[in-house]
């Protein structure tokens, strides 16, 4: 006898079997979280985040049938993280938050956004997933496909670096 699954699990399974309405509902349900990760990982650039999400959700649609029994949310965040790395690897350096702030007068969140772009990809993503998305170290490891201990070290390294950088950050040249 089968037990009820969560909405996201059901939607992902149906989308994997070709149900386009289920896929639309999945985007509707997890779109905000994937957008938040992409936006923060890509220096607050809406343009880059949009590119990354297009790439990520296209990959998700293609690969859903091969997801197996992996957690839908963590699997999707992993797809988005890899898309962000792909899209932003060379473009994000010097990216600015969208509001076009004066570099000498950044709000703390803008300074943090800029500081995040200076971190190595794995540290940046691990810190965002842990501190902004509230994932556990184990879950961060699942998303990044690394052991839990490695994930925890990545978060720690990022945290230390960001604490040092949390003062005014000069714009990238």
């Amino acid at each position, binding site marked *: 006898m*089968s037990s009820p699954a969560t909405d996201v699990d059901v939607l992902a399974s149906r989308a994997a079997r070709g149900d386009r309405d289920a896929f639309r509902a999945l985007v509707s349900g997890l779109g905000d979280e994937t957008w938040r990760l992409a936006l923060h990982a890509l220096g607050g650039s809406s343009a880059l*985040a949009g590119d990354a999400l297009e790439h990520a959700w296209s990959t998700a649609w293609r690969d859903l049938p091969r997801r197996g029994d992996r957690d839908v949310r963590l699997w999707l965040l992993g797809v988005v993280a890899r898309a962000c790395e792909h899209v932003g690897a060379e473009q994000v350096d010097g990216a600015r938050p969208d509001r076009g702030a004066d570099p000498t007068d950044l709000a703390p969140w803008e300074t943090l956004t800029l500081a995040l772009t200076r971190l190595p990809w794995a540290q940046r993503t691990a810190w965002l997933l842990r501190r902004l998305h509230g994932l556990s170290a184990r879950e961060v490891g699942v998303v990044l496909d690394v052991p839990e201990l490695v994930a925890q*070290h990545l978060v720690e390294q990022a945290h230390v670096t960001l604490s040092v950088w*949390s003062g005014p950050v000069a714009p990238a040249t």
Partner: protein
Amino acid sequence: MTRPDDLPDPGRPSDDLPERGAIDLAAATDQLRARPTDLPVEVASRVLLRALATPRPAQLVRGFDEHAFLRVSTSVLTDLVRRRLDGVLADGAVRRIRCTTTRDERLEGVTVDLVARYGTDLRFLATATHDLVGDVLRETFGPEVTDGGSAALVHVHVSDVTRGDPRLVDGHDED
């Protein structure tokens, strides 16, 4: 060797960090977390448009006679069958649809795996499913597709039962 439990909580600044930096980081993190970050509608539209245009690996099925020029992807056929069954079946839900083809791209068979509601008349459910799939195949490829008899072409498997709504069962839980 250090175990995960021995490491400091990354959410709590260590004592040896500059206190001001840690406080500033905490405040900036709170600000960043509080900022509105809903997926913009125009981005969501672009995402869906591109994603759903992404082809999945699939086989092609050839049409018949004057429609022999027609090739339909098995993923499209699966979608058509699923939509028809989802719209009609009340006491059963599709778990999986498999289409098989011959070497010359002829449709060899369509197998529908169903989850049925407990207590449902399975023969009635299977017959209704069988007829609906046959309708979809004839509408897609023409009446010739079932010339050999749809019984040989369409197969219905009832692979599980559930007390709740069968449409709320995750297929992956059951494999």
